[in-house]
């Protein structure tokens, strides 16, 4: 099918973008277009106005700041994947991006677009949740910073208000040499994952875990941190991790059911994948030491 008619707008600055959002009804922002364009072509959406933000240069780029890394919302997935800063300081994000679509979609697709669309099986918002990213949103009342814990409001639903746009994502990298692991299951490479998992680890000199993040996505409508399992993992010795309670925690969730798989199968996958992600995090830690 073909996209329904709409009026096309192309702002060049954040101010122009803000003014358009404030004045137009039933408007959609067009970022990389790798989710919105299919939805238009399939007529799932019929906005009256399309605001194309691909020519707002200040929304793109990767910057090292005093306390971390800021990634502009319009930064392309291909540029993030190729960035030495990201590879060195946010290796989990780079690792997960290998699973995001294909070279032809990563060349257009943006991290901000994916984090605003919030497909439950999308890798980038999941990694943002694992890394406790902060979402910088700008609206008529100025700028606000939304923690990852508040960003996810449900299926395809972010905390962004109608007249707000996502400007950037802020990350605080984990300690140099930290462990990271990622696993997902999709029917074909590059497809939307059916489910996935991520793990982060920091250990002290004796191999005792001092900090961890455990997450599954594509299971419930939003990515899910396993906070209780994280708390139980802290203090354990890296070579003697009790994996069974973590797998049980991932399987205690309330998975979605859809045309692809049953809730039971997602529950099964959640346990398998969190185990794989954690084992990968352990071996990446050993490699870095």
């Amino acid at each position, binding site marked *: 099918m073909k996209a329904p*008619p709409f009026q096309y707008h192309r702002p060049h600055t954040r101010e122009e973008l803000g003014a358009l959002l404030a004045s137009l009804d039933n408007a959609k922002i067009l970022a990389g*277009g790798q989710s919105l364009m299919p939805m238009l*072509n399939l007529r799932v959406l019929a906005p009256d106005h399309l605001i194309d933000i691909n020519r707002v240069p200040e929304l793109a780029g990767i910057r090292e700041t005093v306390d971390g890394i800021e990634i502009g919302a319009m930064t392309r997935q291909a540029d993030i994947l190729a960035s030495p800063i990201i590879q060195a300081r946010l290796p989990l994000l780079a690792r997960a991006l290998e699973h995001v679509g*294909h*070279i*032809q*979609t990563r*060349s*257009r697709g943006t991290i901000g677009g994916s984090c605003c669309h919030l497909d439950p099986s999308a890798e980038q918002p999941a990694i943002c949740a694992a890394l406790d990213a902060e979402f910088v949103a700008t609206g008529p009342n100025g700028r606000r910073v939304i923690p990852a814990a508040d960003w996810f409001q449900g299926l395809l639903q972010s905390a962004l208000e109608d007249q707000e746009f996502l400007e950037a994502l802020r990350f605080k990298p984990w300690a140099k040499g930290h462990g990271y692991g990622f696993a997902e299951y999709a029917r074909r*490479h590059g497809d939307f994952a059916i489910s996935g998992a991520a793990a982060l680890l920091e250990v002290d000199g004796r191999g005792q875990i001092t900090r961890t993040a455990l997450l599954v996505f594509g299971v419930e409508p939003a990515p899910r941190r396993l906070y209780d399992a994280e708390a139980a993992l802290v203090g354990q010795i890296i070579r003697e991790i009790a994996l069974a309670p973590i797998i049980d925690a991932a399987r205690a969730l309330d998975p979605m059911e859809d045309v692809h798989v049953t809730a039971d199968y997602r529950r099964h996958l959640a346990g398998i994948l969190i185990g794989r992600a954690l084992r990968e995090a352990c071996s990446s830690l050993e490699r870095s030491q």
Partner: protein
Amino acid sequence: MTGKHLTFTLNGEPRETSADPRTHLADFLRYGLGLTGTHVGCEHGVCGACTVIVDGVPVRSCLMLAVQIDCCTVETVEGLANGDELSPLQQAFSTHHGLQCGFCTPGMLMTLEALLRATPSPTEHDIRMAISGNICRCTGYQGIVEAALAAAAVRTSTP
């Protein structure tokens, strides 16, 4: 055609025309400009048949609006051959039986053209990753991978 005014470079030639905002790039190339080499398969970014190169990178032309190529450089499969002379990659596809029905071929060619420019000596794994977003229902991919490896060898041996 009515719509928004556009200036861009298409296969090395400067072009000036207009496009309706809701028309995606693949339809614009085919119906607006008569360049039917770019094929439209799924229209939701899954099959890869519509892949073209915009500003040096491969993109799905069904997932870009035509109006977004304003001031950009666009390359389509029509730009690969030099008159009647096939490009090394096209020639390799012929030699290694990299196509049967030909529907996916323009997307395969443009994806691999972009790969070979960025990575002149790709491994088989690089090639398979590059075309992982291009679906072919005839060849089983083996001939395509062999063609890409052969084209890489020809391109790196000719100055």
